């Protein structure tokens, strides 16, 4: 039964390599989803079913959706429709689809094994995980909540579109407006080519 682990590992490595070498962000994100699903299957093999579920929900779900939102936001324009046509060609789905098919075959195999653990050693039960999380690691949970709050406030502050009158005010104060970071960037001849 270790074959499930090894096949998932190979799929994870192939998908990750394809993700970081891809030229198109959306195609790379497709490969990254497959990579996270493969790692989730590795977690399940290693006796961590709760973590496997969280990997699928948070990594392959929420974080990838954030990436896709940003990729879509940055491409608003006339060429967006053409780009969408180029991104959703059928050829792009072959690689991630084949790798995901390997993973779903493994999942079906695991389902028909009718056992809760694949390898030696019993899996960590969710109750045990929760008891430890809210017992000795209570301080860590509090710190994680503060990290999430800081991330929320930071993302709101950075992602907010500045009002034009605010930048105008900053520009009219020559002494302090230089380093405040609020003014628009000086127009420089910026090389528009995105590094590949």
């Amino acid at each position, binding site marked *: 039964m*270790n074959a499930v682990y090894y096949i998932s*590992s190979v799929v994870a490595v192939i998908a990750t390599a394809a993700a970081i070498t891809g030229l198109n962000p959306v195609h790379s994100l497709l490969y990254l989803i497959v990579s996270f699903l493969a790692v989730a299957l590795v977690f399940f093999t290693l006796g961590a079913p709760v973590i496997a579920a969280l990997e699928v929900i948070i990594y392959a779900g929420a974080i990838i959706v954030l990436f896709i939102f940003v990729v879509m936001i940055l491409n608003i324009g006339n060429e967006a429709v053409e780009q969408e046509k180029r991104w959703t060609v059928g050829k792009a789905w072959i690689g991630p689809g084949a790798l995901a098919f390997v993973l779903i075959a493994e999942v079906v195999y695991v389902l028909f094994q009718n056992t809760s653990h694949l390898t030696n050693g019993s899996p960590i039960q969710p109750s045990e995980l929760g008891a430890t999380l809210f017992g000795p690691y209570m301080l860590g949970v509090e710190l994680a909540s503060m990290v999430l709050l800081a*991330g929320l406030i930071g993302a709101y502050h950075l992602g907010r579109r500045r009002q034009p009158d605010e930048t105008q005010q900053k520009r009219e104060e020559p002494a302090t407006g*230089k380093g405040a970071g609020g003014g628009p960037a000086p127009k420089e001849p910026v090389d528009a080519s*995105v590094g590949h």
Partner: protein
Amino acid sequence: MASIPMEQGLVLAAVLFTLGLIGVLVRRNIIFVLLSLEVMLNASGLAFIVAGYRWSQPDGQILFLFVLTMAAAEVSVGLALVLQLHRLFKTLDIDVASRMRG
């Protein structure tokens, strides 16, 4: 029902981490850099899970939860920075943003 040796799990984590590190060092598009950072964080979490599996303790999985929280906060702030970068420079090349203006 053979158990998986700890070394093989750590090798998988090391390979994934190295792939992410290569992505951070080589790519110049900031979206791909953030994506490679996610791969690296995921690989470090995998190392925690392998250690927890080796000793059958839930501590490794709890540390993975903390890594997961940190990754979620990091990627939200990072993508907000991507939006600001694109708004200021109209490009996603991180070499453009290599100078500080104080």
